[in-house]
């Protein structure tokens, strides 16, 4: 594996991790300013911050998609698939066999108190959903088209063959 390919893969994985963490922090910050998502009484500056938050979330999804697609790596696809699925599993695990009594106490199979904060906003989970689908799409492309692990290395091969 060549250095540029390795760097591209590391960048794709690191960018996804950084964006996930960033969106989680962004959600927490937005919620502290705007209020909970179900509260419709929103005033400035929340009304302007909300669209900015939507755009940042969407831009993160598009950025990760471009980086992942450009890396053409099975390893990146696997990391995206596993990481995205792990993040997406949090709400499901959190609510697994989890009766809640009328004062809000619960007795869940998986007691994940940190997950309540992690699930405060939807942005990080939306990126995780995109990561899962990107991972599947990349694996399908590899399987259906039979592309080599490193497309760019092959593209550079002819000149080296001459040399």
């Amino acid at each position: 594996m060549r250095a540029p390919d390795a760097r591209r893969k590391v960048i794709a994985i690191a960018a996804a991790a950084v964006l996930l963490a960033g969106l989680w922090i962004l959600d927490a910050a937005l919620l502290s300013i705007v209020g909970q998502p179900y509260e419709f009484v929103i005033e400035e500056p929340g009304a302007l911050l909300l669209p900015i938050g939507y755009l940042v979330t969407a831009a993160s999804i598009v950025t990760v998609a471009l980086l992942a697609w450009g890396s053409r790596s099975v390893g990146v696809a696997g990391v995206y698939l596993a990481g995205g699925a792990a993040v997406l599993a949090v709400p499901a695990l959190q609510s697994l066999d989890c009766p809640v009594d009328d004062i809000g106490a619960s007795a869940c199979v998986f007691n994940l108190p940190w997950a309540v904060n992690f699930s405060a906003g939807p942005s990080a989970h939306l990126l995780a959903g995109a990561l899962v689908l990107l991972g599947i799409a990349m694996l399908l492309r590899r399987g259906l088209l039979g592309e080599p692990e490193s497309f760019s290395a092959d593209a550079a091969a002819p000149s080296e063959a001459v040399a």
Partner: protein
Amino acid sequence: MSNLRNGLIAIVVAVLLGVLLRWFDGTVLVQAQHDASQNFRLDGAGPLLSIGFLLVGGSVLLAAALGWVSRSPVAGIAYLVIGLGVALVPWLGIGLTTCIADGTSCTSTFPLFADWYFTLAAGVINAVLIYAAGVGIAGVAILARSLRGGRP
């Protein structure tokens, strides 16, 4: 002509995806949360929430990919105007207010957008608004490529 046809197909699919997300977020997820609070059980709502996240992420990627491969400036313009327009609805409807002189009473400058906001945001995960933002960003990319003569 082929680009235009592909662009129109991309626009129609993008709109249909938005309608699907509005239904899932505003009807299915809201009902699941309501049931969970009625039964004091969260079992059904959690997995549905994860499915909703997958749907939104997938819809953004699908709409962006369709628009990109269509190579249609029409799709780019439609994505940009509709996507960013819908994403800015909270600001247009709630953020821009007109107040009386003493500032004690304020009303929305664009009440129509306020109505739209309450309709579009009536879900659990803001699916439509985030999806629209993704479509708008895809529109910027499609238009940028068109202006560069089709080069990516």
